[in-house]
């Protein structure tokens, strides 16, 4: 730290508003030389702002503290190593950590610590196949499903497993928007050929969230060619998407069709048992002994996605560490009190009925009516099952909310829907879609 700049900061702290000081002045990094002090701004926006609003003041204090010996130079930069800004420097992570590999793969995501359940076992099996038979098993492998269900984890696990088997393999993981950004930069810098060579030369290309290609025609075209080249060479392509590609608006038909060439596998929201297993595993990873009944409690109350589960677990662990209390169900109820009451406000029987009625295009009143047509009874049974899974209401309370039905009707509805989820793909999909809608 430059001693002169330190003095300047101490002075400026009292002369500039706290808001301006913390946003514009403190982030500047000083590099002092014999006759100059260079202040590095993290980006153009900050640089322009500081130049426009604070340059004179900065010059003044630097002049005072250096007795006129230092001049001020403002520029964009950082004293740390620069982030990998483009495809031409993919091998330089910003901060070398034991978690990240140079190819953007996160070492922490492996198959070993991926919790398998009914909702994701097919995707996991296919991913293992791909990592063991790169370019031969399923190409491309497309993993699709809602946000926060472990698609990215699976993708990193594939990359890590490939490298485990063949350390010299050129595996690249990136988010689709990074591909777009790199391409824009390449076009600006007249280096599109280098860009093409780079991405078309990898052994395995793992691209996350391809739905973000929607509406970006030039990027889609480039990706189309990259994709074809890799497949022709029998190099592996793995993609993730938040929905089945055919449903993406703004994605070219030829891409939609090609993405379906290999194996598209879905990941669904985790079921109760998988949610509990995920919690136990995550707790174990951070050396916390999570009682099983606590895992069951959280899994029951947080029915949505893995990120929400992780967030809840973090809250419980952080609270236990702060208070020094053991993690029990009572303690967890208290620690998650806010979260659970919010969840309850968001997911209640009224909301479930409204969502189910909209989904099946029937009237809300039909769900409480005596109507026994299957177009109404099935949605009613599904709504009752969702109410049982997502709320803490008892069977009689749920029965009451559906036109004063007996609690045995609700028990039978839940049993029937759970059977149908196993045997009827349509019911299983409808249920998963509704669960996803209600949990976000």
């Amino acid at each position, binding site marked *: *730290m430059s001693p002169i700049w330190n003095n300047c900061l101490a002075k400026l*702290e*009292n*002369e*500039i*508003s*706290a*808001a301006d*000081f*913390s*946003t514009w002045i*403190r*982030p500047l*990094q000083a590099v002092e030389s014999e006759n100059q002090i260079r202040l590095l701004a*993290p*980006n*153009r*926006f*900050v640089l322009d702002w500081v130049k426009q609003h604070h340059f004179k003041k900065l010059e003044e204090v630097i002049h005072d503290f250096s007795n006129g010996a230092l001049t001020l130079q403002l520029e*964009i930069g*950082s004293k*740390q*190593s*620069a*982030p990998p*800004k483009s495809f031409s420097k993919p091998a330089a*992570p*910003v*901060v070398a*950590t034991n*978690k*990240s590999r140079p190819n*953007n793969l*996160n070492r922490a995501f492996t198959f070993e610590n991926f919790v398998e359940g009914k909702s994701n076992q097919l995707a996991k099996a296919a991913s293992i196949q791909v990592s063991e038979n790169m370019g031969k098993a399923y190409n491309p492998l497309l993993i699709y499903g*809602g*946000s*926060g269900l472990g698609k990215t984890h699976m993708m990193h696990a594939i990359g890590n497993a490939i490298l485990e088997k063949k350390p010299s393999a050129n595996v690249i993981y990136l*988010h689709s*928007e*990074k591909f777009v*950004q790199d391409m824009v930069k390449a076009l600006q810098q007249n280096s599109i050929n280098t860009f093409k060579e780079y991405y078309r030369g990898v052994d395995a290309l793992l691209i996350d969230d391809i739905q*973000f290609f929607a509406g970006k025609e030039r990027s889609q075209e480039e990706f189309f060619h990259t994709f074809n080249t890799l497949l022709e060479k029998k190099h592996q392509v793995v993609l993730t998407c*938040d929905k089945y590609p055919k449903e993406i608006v703004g994605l070219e038909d030829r891409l939609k069709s090609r993405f379906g060439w290999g194996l598209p596998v879905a990941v669904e929201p985790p079921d109760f048992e998988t949610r509990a297993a995920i919690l136990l595993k995550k707790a174990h990873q951070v050396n916390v002994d999570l009682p099983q009944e606590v895992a069951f409690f959280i899994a029951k109350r947080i029915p949505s*996605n893995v*990120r*929400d589960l*992780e*967030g809840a677990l*973090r*809250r419980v662990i*952080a*609270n236990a560490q*702060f*208070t020094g209390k053991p993690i029990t169900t009572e303690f967890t109820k208290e620690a998650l009190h*806010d*979260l659970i009451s*919010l*969840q309850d406000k*968001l997911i209640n029987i009224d909301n479930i009925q409204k969502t189910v009625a909209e989904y099946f295009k029937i009237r809300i009143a039909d769900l409480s009516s005596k109507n026994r047509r299957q177009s109404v009874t099935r949605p009613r049974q599904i709504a009752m099952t969702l109410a049982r899974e997502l709320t803490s209401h008892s069977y009689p309370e749920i029965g009451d909310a559906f036109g004063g039905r007996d609690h045995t009707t609700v028990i039978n509805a839940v049993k029937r829907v759970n059977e149908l989820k196993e045997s009827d793909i349509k019911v299983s999909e409808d249920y998963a879609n509704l669960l996803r809608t209600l949990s*976000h």
Partner: protein
Amino acid sequence: MAEQLPLQFEFNTQQTFHNYYPGSNQEIVAHLQEAIIHRTEQLIFLWGEPGLGKTHLLRASCQLAYEQQQSSFMISLNPEALPDVSILDDLDAIESVCIDNIDAIAGIDEWEHAFFNFFNRHRDNDQHLILSASSPPVYLTVQLADLKTRLNWGLTLKLKALTDNDSLGALTFKADSLGFEISPQVGRFLLTHFARDLPSLWALLDRLDVASLAAKRKLTLPFLKQLLKTPSDV
């Protein structure tokens, strides 16, 4: 004799953890400090009603990061005048980034995408992010589902509102930092006659400080009542 005019300079107090009155929010202060010093939680989402000191805590976190010789950056977003998204460019390597009022970007497509991309890059670099909003992630009207689930990923902490005892403690704490004493009697009087959120209380004390300095009188109940007769003074 003419009233003495107090010297009108504004001492621009830096907002640090030392001058934050935690009340029932000690746990939050502890987690923020721990996250900065020991680089523990990668994402902290702080939420609570306006006036509980979220901005103060974010500034304090940046100050602490600076003291720990870490790079830090703070943006306070104003929903009425959001800056250009390029303010997020190249912040990936900044060790602690604090964004105040993140709810301001909800529903604004360009900002949601830019922040989503920044979030991923910054997280991939193992850097730390502290966000604040007036409601929890699940209530934000964020349209990008991937962003919404990411906001829920970290440690979400709710700032608790001040109880009457906390408010009294806060008044004494602030008065002490301004260099004068405030009796519990005066404190209770202020709490029953004025707005009790922290910014209003702080502003009130600043004004009372000036008034008592001008009158060269201690801040007693009779003096306060006398001031109240001329409300423009306070």
